């Protein structure tokens, strides 16, 4: 276990940023999101949940795939370079780290998505334990320990120090890079914090949320439930829940005409949008009910069916906080629970 005084954190950031690019929670115009560190930025480790998850670091909201130039009849395709430089994502919470594991299941499955894989292999994850979980958190339900998250390096923030524990080889490498800023430490403060967090987690309102009945086998029974009929009603069909979610991975591929060629990029898409499945001969999800159902069925039924029971929800609670109509996955799970299904 290592530690560094809070007052020295700017030095730590600068030291990391000198060697690699550093992505961490930065407050801009009142909201905190993961962003590239600069000398002038306002690092914010106090806000528990960034608005968007850390997903952007590995799977950006939009990224160029290739450029296409046309010269007469000839087309030339220039693929975008893959990530080839190392970078560090600092301050990811346990839920977001698990979110990346969920993305891995999708993008690292054959055929491997090389854009994602390149970022994964060049990125080092420095996770941060949640000192003060909030009411919308339910990561425990998915077996995540927010007091000791996964990652290459795990850190804990107390009033005076940031405690630093390298876990993987990548983590050791990063630790070596900043070794002269870190001092050795015992575990006492961290143990105390973990215990305190554990007690809070027990008291979280959604700590006892039951996922019973949500699995790949329940497919048709859940799909055909009449409950969706009322559940979807307040949905505005916006993409807030999808875009703040650490696990939503559906994407769209689009073209942009730059005037001297076509830039093909991919961007996050949302199953909540009415044109998500639109095609020349029609749309197989014509109602908001179907689209709403798709989101939750994907997370709680289809994904586990294809990935050995792993849910595509990590209980970060962002959708709970952000839905303009106060709809969320917790309400859906509970509604089915009440029905005894």
């Amino acid at each position, binding site marked *: 276990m290592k530690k560094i005084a809070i007052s020295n954190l700017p030095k730590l950031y600068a030291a990391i940023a000198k060697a690699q690019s550093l992505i961490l929670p930065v407050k801009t115009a009142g909201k905190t999101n993961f962003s590239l560190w600069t000398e002038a930025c306002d690092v914010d480790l106090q806000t528990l949940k960034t608005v968007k998850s850390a997903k952007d670091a590995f799977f950006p909201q939009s990224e160029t*795939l290739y450029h*296409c130039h*046309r010269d007469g*009849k*000839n*087309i*030339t*395709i220039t*693929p975008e*370079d*893959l*990530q*080839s430089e190392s970078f560090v994502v600092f301050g990811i919470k346990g839920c977001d780290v698990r979110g990346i594991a969920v993305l891995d299941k*999708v*993008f690292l*499955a054959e*055929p*491997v*998505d*090389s*854009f994602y*894989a*390149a970022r994964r*292999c*060049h990125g080092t994850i420095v996770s941060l334990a949640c000192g003060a979980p909030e009411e919308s958190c339910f990561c425990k339900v998915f077996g995540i320990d927010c007091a000791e998250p996964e990652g290459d390096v795990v850190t804990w923030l107390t009033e005076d120090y940031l405690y630093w524990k390298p876990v993987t080889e990548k983590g050791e490498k990063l630790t070596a890079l900043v070794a002269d800023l870190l001092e050795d430490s015992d575990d006492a403060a961290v143990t105390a914090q973990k215990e305190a967090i554990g007690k809070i987690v027990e008291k979280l309102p959604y700590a006892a949320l039951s996922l019973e009945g949500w699995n*790949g086998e329940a*497919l*048709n029974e859940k*799909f*055909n439930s009449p409950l969706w009929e009322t559940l979807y009603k307040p949905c505005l069909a916006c993409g807030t829940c999808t875009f703040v979610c650490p696990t939503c*991975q*559906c*994407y*769209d*591929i689009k*073209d942009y*005409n730059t005037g001297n060629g*076509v830039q*093909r990029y*991919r961007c996050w*898409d949302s*199953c909540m949008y009415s044109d*998500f*499945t*639109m*095609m*020349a*001969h029609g*749309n*197989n*999800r014509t109602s908001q009910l*179907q689209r709403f159902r*798709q989101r939750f*069925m*994907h997370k709680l*039924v*289809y*994904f586990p*069916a*294809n990935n050995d029971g792993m849910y595509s929800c990590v209980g970060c609670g962002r959708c709970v906080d952000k839905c303009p109509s106060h709809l969320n996955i917790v309400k859906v799970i509970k509604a089915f629970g009440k029905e005894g299904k």
Partner: protein
Amino acid sequence: MHEHECTCHPGFIHDTLIPQVGVITDIRQETPDVKTFRIEPPQGGKFFEHMPGQCAMICVPGVSEAMFSITSSPTNKEYQEFSIKKCGVLTDCLHSLEVGDQVTVRGPYGNHFPVETELKKQNLLFIAGGIALAPLRSVINYVLDNRQNYGHVDILYGARSADDLVQLKEIQEVWMKTADVNVYLTIDRPQEGWDGNVGFVPTYLKELAFDTNRTAILCGPPIMIKFCLQALQEMGFSKQQVYTTLELRMKCGVGKCGRCNIGSKYVCKDGPVFRCDQIDELPAEY
């Protein structure tokens, strides 16, 4: 090919989302709204090896990209063909292209008809309607080119009118002349100069009263599939004996972009070929 390499993953020279350039080397007007395009890489040959039933993404840069079934059989060693019906923004644009124009192609995507496993040694009944002959053509030619591996072949093909029958030349000159292959053609409404059967495919199917000692491969518009399936069941076929294809909106082709799912199955990866009893297990959202 693409100099597009990740230092720690030397294998990643070619992401599946990055297409190859293709040159249109031949265009055949099949029907008033269907053209068959022969598309080759600039250096000639084929883009990739595929199996019958597999698809590829064809894109006109700046217009759109969509999944098309590869019409030519894998046994064709020289080139690949796509029969495309004019019905949307992209296909309109494709139809306006000329020989020598370039598009981009990526693939192959999806599963394929089990020509080397379940279908082997079987008697086969192909049922197609309209443009749906496109995916079946590759299977039929594959079967005919490996004739010894399969039993008796019946092909039932229908279209709106005689002018809408795709690949008529090949049907008449090759398929009809192959031993132990019966071709049944039908059109929806009577037409001058047509002395074949008139009537919808499902009706004709019932009239033909095939015995159940065969596997049916069914492809067509959803409504035709529905009624043909009913007819087949009335004739005593079980759902395990019938294969069909599904189509939904696809973007990535590799089961990641998340839109072509029916339940936990992705049509682009787990499909497009499904056995009918497998489809029954899926939620009704297609």
